[in-house]
């Protein structure tokens, strides 16, 4: 190593020192400790006692665990495609060169700034079965078909759709990312497609979507990681109970309750590792599926 190289190595390490320390204290050590605790009976108040894989075995028998996993999958299965569809559709509309694009963009983006807690309280009020403004407008429409609108958050069938609906209201964030992606698509490609007489759908399928596929991929992976950690919204809506009848007990909420309400920290760590494996597995699956379908420019 030359003097110059040694000099650079020293400087480089000094500059990244904050991260190195933070990584050790707030990432590496916690990960190692979390693996260990997941194999222990641990309540934070007393030292951990090794119990091998008992936590994992118990999770397999825990109906609330399975329920929470099921609820979270339900949320992810509906929320991810719906949010991607709405975000892309809105971005496509705004990218037509329509006048007042910046104004519309601001309007659609505003809700995603709203703090989760305020969002929860606001929607709780709007979806109230008796006084809620949503049902007030919905009932006359449904009445034509002889139906009545549901008491959203009080029924096991409609509580999850209600939460999906609220989450979709924050779709503006992804929309802004898609819009930026759309604006990067070279104009010549559309002109060439026009000369070939391509229809609007052909251009969408053969030009637009392939070219923004990296953006879609990024949003889907990020959305996936986020969807499995839904916490604040259902927690506030149900006062931490996940009702009615556990229909809104999501994975992260049950994990939090195990850790901080029942002080079963080891059990919660085991849950966290299962969550990690699920998210990792799904991310790898998305990567696998998208291989050859995501276009990164060049050849």
């Amino acid at each position, binding site marked *: 190593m030359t003097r110059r190289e040694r000099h650079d190595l020293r400087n480089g390490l000094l500059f990244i020192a904050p991260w190195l320390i933070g990584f050790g204290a707030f990432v590496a050590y916690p990960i190692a400790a979390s693996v260990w605790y997941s194999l222990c009976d641990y309540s934070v108040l007393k030292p951990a006692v090794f119990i091998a894989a008992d936590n994992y075995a118990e999770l397999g028998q825990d109906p609330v665990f399975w329920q929470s996993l099921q609820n979270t999958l339900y949320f992810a299965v509906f929320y991810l495609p719906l949010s991607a569809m709405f975000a892309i559709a809105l971005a496509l509309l705004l990218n037509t060169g329509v006048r007042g694009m910046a104004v519309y963009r601001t309007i659609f983006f505003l809700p995603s700034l709203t*703090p989760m807690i305020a969002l929860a309280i606001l929607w709780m009020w709007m979806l109230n079965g008796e006084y809620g403004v949503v049902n007030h407008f919905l009932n006359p429409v449904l009445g034509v078909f002889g139906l009545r609108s549901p008491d959203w958050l009080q029924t096991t069938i409609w509580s999850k759709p209600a939460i999906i609906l609220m989450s979709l209201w924050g779709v503006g964030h992804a929309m802004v990312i898609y819009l930026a992606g759309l604006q990067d698509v070279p104009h010549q490609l559309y002109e060439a497609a026009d000369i070939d007489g391509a229809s609007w759908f052909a251009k969408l399928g053969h030009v637009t979507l392939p070219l923004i596929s990296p953006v879609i991929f990024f949003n889907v992976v990020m959305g996936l990681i986020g969807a499995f950690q839904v916490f604040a919204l259902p927690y506030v809506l149900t006062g931490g109970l996940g009702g009615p009848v556990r229909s809104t007990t999501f994975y992260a909420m049950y994990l939090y309750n195990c850790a901080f309400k029942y002080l079963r920290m080891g059990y919660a760590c085991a849950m966290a590792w299962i969550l990690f494996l699920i998210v990792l597995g799904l991310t790898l699956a998305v990567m696998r599926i998208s291989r050859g379908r995501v276009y990164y420019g060049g050849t």
Partner: protein
Amino acid sequence: MAERDSQMTIPHRVRRVPRRGLRSFLIHAVLISGSFVFLFPLAWMISTSLKPIEQTMVMPPKWIPNPVQFLNYLRAVNFIPFFTYARNTLTICLLGTAGMVLSSSLVAYGFARIDWRGRNVLFVIVLATMMIPFPVTMIPLYGIFRNLHWIGTFRPLWVPAWFGNAFNIFLLRQFFMTIPRDLSDSARIDGCTELGIYRRVVLPLSRPALAVVALFHFMYNWNDFMGPLIYLIDQKTFTLSLGLQFYQSQHGGTEWNMLMAASTLVVLPIIVLFFFTQKTFIQGITMTGLKA
């Protein structure tokens, strides 16, 4: 100026054929109805926050409260120690944001502007940490802060920000890489140290990216619910997001006008902040999506 504007718009209008007019009409129709859906809840919140209690339940809803009752805000602010909570939130936000910008920019500089052995391996580790869900580290972290006797203080909520964050490091590194190396080299010839180049060359050229990191972290702290829920115990130390929840569960959905007034007060600063920094904001979100 006015003349130039009119010159620019006329040919545009002439060119527009009827079919295009219809298409543009349809697009506007969809966008405007979409705007109603998106703005509806916020408008409803503000409208309810100004209503007398008996008008909150009236159906069909009255959009314009009569009389306009500003008193709701006064009562909302006095019902919980609102200003104490606001000060707590702001303290955490400012301390956290200052640390996040400083540490992430230092680390990003080390990864972007200095060549050293092992740099790329470590950077891959930085990126990999983004994949780890928070619950995995949550419990040991709680244990660490408990041993430090930090539970019940603001420290667990802002001290980690002083050690950088993978995503922000990544964002700033990408930005720093675009600054020409020649600038650093000439500064070095002039006798500038690495720290001097960071401070006098790279930072001043990176204001937009630094603003993005600052804004996002501020927003994150302002909206964060889980962190304060885990680490804060004493009600005097609560943040706004926590206080609002506590308040809401205590008053079981009875006085909606007051609740909506309180919610408006929590949302408002973020919306005002957004309007003043809109360009930076949109730029920042764009950066997060495209550089991945």
